[in-house]
């Protein structure tokens, strides 16, 4: 029987409900420069956290397990008869505390430099590494409990006993949450009059009953299991890491299909429900550990399902030499058809070769996949602090420039400025690395990773939190932000003062102090702004960008400590911090006015190229890759006139060429100028408009006016 109409109407209903929920969140909670996450509003009598410290916050194993279990015991249940799966998350537990770092473990020794260089140190931040979902699918909740019991008998230090008991309680509270959903579904079956929906609820109840303890056996059960885990993990601390979703689900799909439990229409429906549930980051295609492409029929069905759901979706296509071209082409078709910023693309070659430079083999490197905002991770194997630690390089530049100007013992020059800059950059990177080392030492007392530990290889086996020696690898991320601001500033000073002698250090400094006010200020600002930028190709700015990249990479890499298994990996990414970072930096010699946003991630400054911006961007970003397996993403605002089927091949060739040249990740927006301007004026008119803000997608209507302006500027200027 053709049920495609029924499935489509259910998906449409779920989409409408999702957009209504997003609207409700905006009305009640206000705007948010973040992903939508699929979260729904908490009830009026919302759960409140239970402090275990005089400062009103909660810390450590006891604090987190007590709060998590208590919260899960009263967590609202959520069942929609149109949905194939139960559950939504409502609480940002990690944000429901008055303080995110345990005051008994002060890091005052780092605070001066953190402030001086505007570092986001990541101390007390959480998640941002990936769980091994297949491990969970093979064990099921009871299997995880058995594993906890098994190692509790081996690792018997008091702190470890507490560790295991906390995890056990957490799992049991998740099971209790699932059981309460089953009760609700059974109640709804009694009252549901629509036979189709009733049958759906019966199936949903059975699916859930089968996985409360046991590992999933069918595709529905596998997806529902994944949903419960990620909803719990989201609730705990916003973790949104995914995995290789096609290969993860393939055995279940193939078995169901062979045994007649499922057809392709239903598979698409199940997958659409799954994608509507949350915006977790999943990878499609790409090589397995031996280099064989993992694309299978379900890879295509996931794309078809994403097309049906067409909301905020984070699918990444892994581009590699042995890629399935059909999958790639289909993904491009959906990219331009929906113009909803999905999928995005990661470049296998540079990621694998780069990661191997850290001393890892190709098999391991290929398993480090796109599972986060801008980041790659080895699911279940590493602790990373990906996307959590950032050095505002523009602020470091400001510190260096002022020091040079104030110290009149020598004449100013770009050579001298570079020497001062690198000494401060070294201090900034050292501070960021010290912050990470501090986190590795004390985070377990602050916020243990109760949920992510469950699907990591090592924490349960060793009885140590993943942040505390539990993980197999510590591949620690430090991102630079504001690269283009710094490169263009050096280039402007060198070109306009030293090479052309069109202005002087004194004059530039005068106008910097005055934020380029007045007609003379504006004239000098434009002189500097119109100098040779990073991104123009073989320009002075490009040279500086490469020099800065090389130094930043060296400084981050030298923080590694093989004896401690600490590998520090550099990247360029600013996430949504471009506005806040910019507010902390005065006017810069690239003609940027004070307190305006810094450049975005690895991108050149907006307006860097008159034409051919896509190629210039692809070349420039490929050219400044740190090259050790973390990303410096290319944020691509693709001209909407190219978004036709005629140009699929050309878009594909730009993507492939960027990766061939060393690129690591491409985030794409295809936004019509008039639409984005109108949406900026009246966001409520466009509740379904999705933009890829940085690594993540977000509903445009959820962004603050400042951030909307940033996205609008980026799109218009490129």
């Amino acid at each position, binding site marked *: 029987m053709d049920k495609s109409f029924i499935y489509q109407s259910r998906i449409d209903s779920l989409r409408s409900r999702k957009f209504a929920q997003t609207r409700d969140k905006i009305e009640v909670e206000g705007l948010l420069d973040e992903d939508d996450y699929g979260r729904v509003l908490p009830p009026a009598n919302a759960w409140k956290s239970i402090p275990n410290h005089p400062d009103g916050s909660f810390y450590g194993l006891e604090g987190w397990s007590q709060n998590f279990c208590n919260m899960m015991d009263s967590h609202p249940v959520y069942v929609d008869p149109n949905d194939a799966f139960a559950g939504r998350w409502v609480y940002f537990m990690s944000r429901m505390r008055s303080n995110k770092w345990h005051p008994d473990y002060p890091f005052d020794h780092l605070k001066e430099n953190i402030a001086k260089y505007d570092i986001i140190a990541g101390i007390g931040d959480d998640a941002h590494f990936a769980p091994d979902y297949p491990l969970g699918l093979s064990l099921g909740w009871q299997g995880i409990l058995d594993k906890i019991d098994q190692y509790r008998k081996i690792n018997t230090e008091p702190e470890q006993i507490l560790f295991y008991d906390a995890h056990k309680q957490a799992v049991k509270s998740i099971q209790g949450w699932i059981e309460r959903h089953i009760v609700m579904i059974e109640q709804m079956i009694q009252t549901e009059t629509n036979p189709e929906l009733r049958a759906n609820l019966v199936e949903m109840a059975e699916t859930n009953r089968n996985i409360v303890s046991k590992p999933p056996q069918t595709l529905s059960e596998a997806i529902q299991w994944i949903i419960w885990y990620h909803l719990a993990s989201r609730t705990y601390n916003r973790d949104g890491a995914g995995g290789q979703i096609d290969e993860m689900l393939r055995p279940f799909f193939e078995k169901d299909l062979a045994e007649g439990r499922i057809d392709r229409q239903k598979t698409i429906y199940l997958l659409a429900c799954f994608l509507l549930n949350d915006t977790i980051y999943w990878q499609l295609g790409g090589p397995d550990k031996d280099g064989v492409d993992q694309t299978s029929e379900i890879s295509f069905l996931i794309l078809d399902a994403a097309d049906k759901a067409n909301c905020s979706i984070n699918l990444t296509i892994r581009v590699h030499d042995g890629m399935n071209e059909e999958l790639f082409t289909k993904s491009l078709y959906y990219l331009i058809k929906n113009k909803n910023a999905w999928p995005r693309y990661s470049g296998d070659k540079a990621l694998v070769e780069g990661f191997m430079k850290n001393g890892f083999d190709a098999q391991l490197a290929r398993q480090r996949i796109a599972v986060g905002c801008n980041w790659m991770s080895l699911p279940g194997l590493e602790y990373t602090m990906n996307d959590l630690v950032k050095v505002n390089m523009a602020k470091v530049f400001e510190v260096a420039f002022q020091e040079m100007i104030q110290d009149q013992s020598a004449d100013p020059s770009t050579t001298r400025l570079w020497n001062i800059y690198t000494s401060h950059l070294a201090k900034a990177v050292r501070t960021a690395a010290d912050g990470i080392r501090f986190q590795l030492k004390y985070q377990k007392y602050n916020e243990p990773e109760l949920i992510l530990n469950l699907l990591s290889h090592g924490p349960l086996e060793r009885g140590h939190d993943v942040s505390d020696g539990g993980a197999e690898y510590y591949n620690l991320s430090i991102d630079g932000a504001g690269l283009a601001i710094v490169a263009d500033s050096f280039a402007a000073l060198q070109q306009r003062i030293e090479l052309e002698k*069109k202005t002087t250090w004194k004059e530039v400094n005068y106008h910097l102090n005055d934020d380029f006010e007045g007609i003379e200020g504006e004239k000098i600002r434009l002189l500097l702004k119109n100098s040779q930028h990073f991104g123009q190709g073989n320009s002075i700015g490009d040279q500086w960008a490469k020099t800065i990249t090389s130094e930043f990479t060296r400084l981050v890499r030298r923080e590694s400590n093989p004896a401690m298994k600490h590998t520090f990996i550099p990247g360029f990414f600013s996430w949504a911090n471009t506005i806040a970072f910019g507010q902390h930096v005065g006017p810069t010699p690239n003609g940027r006015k004070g307190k305006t946003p810094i450049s975005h991630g690895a991108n050149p400054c907006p307006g860097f190229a008159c034409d051919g911006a896509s190629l210039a961007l692809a070349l420039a970003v490929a050219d400044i890759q740190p090259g050790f397996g973390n990303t410096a993403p290319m944020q691509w605002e693709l001209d909407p006139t190219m978004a036709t089927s005629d140009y699929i091949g050309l878009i594909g060739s730009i993507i492939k*060429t960027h990766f*061939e040249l060393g690129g690591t990740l491409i985030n794409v927006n295809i936004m019509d100028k008039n639409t984005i301007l109108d949406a900026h004026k009246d966001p409520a008119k466009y509740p379904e408009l999705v933009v890829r803000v940085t690594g993540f997608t977000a509903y445009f209507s959820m962004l603050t006016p400042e951030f909307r302006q940033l996205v609008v500027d980026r799109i218009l200027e490129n």
Partner: protein
Amino acid sequence: MKGLITTIQRMSLHDGPGIRSTVFLKGCNMHCGWCHNPETLYVNPELEWIRQKCIGCNSCIEVCQSGAFSLKEGKPEFQKTLCTSCFDCVSVCYAEAINKVGREITPEEVFAEVEQDFPFFKSSGGGVTISGGEPMLQAEFTAKTLTLFKSAGIHTALDTNLSVSWKQYDKVLPFTDLVLADLKLMDDALHLKWTGKHNAVILENIYKLDSSGIAYFIRTPVIPGINDNEQEIKAIVAFVASLKNLKKFELLPFHTLASCKYTNLEIENPMGATRDLPKEKMEQLRQILK
């Protein structure tokens, strides 16, 4: 050897297959009323003034010896007729409101600028296109430039109005993979009126091109009020149908995107009042091709 170009446009998508860089040569022997590259019409460098970019610093007035820039109601005003093309004002205009259009460049320098995009050409089946203006007015430069790219294994295209002597083409075509030829009007009187040239040489050259063995496309710009009628398009189509080796024939709709260029260059725009060709009209004319 140096040529005079206006720009090298990266990621050109309409001047041949794949992703291309198009080199626009300055100077044209036709003056088509609808020209969308008016900056390429004249053979000498000229001044472009983008009024919207002017910040009113008046530096241009301070250096202008000819009085082409003067103060009017507190703001700079430009009179092109007074300009002696000394270009002193360009270097003092930090806002880049004043630009010199036309730069001398060697074929080697063109190659060096374009080279960075070779990876995109290779992955997309693209290459380099020499356009204009009329590139055959600088045939030696065009030939040398095409030779460099051809030798590097890059696909080459020549965008020409085919109105110069075939002997000139002999210098260039050995290094050309694809010719993009224009055929604007079959009616010779109208052709003369709107382009300043008869079309006899063009038609003759098209036949020569057809028998040369070189791949070529013919493109007809469809201009409101000039050739956007069935009679003219049918005449062109009938001619095109007589060709044996034509790879592609295209109708290109007139657009108004060039109007700001006329303003900035202070060149009178003969089609200034003409609007974009309606899509329906274009579709109707495209039906003739079928």
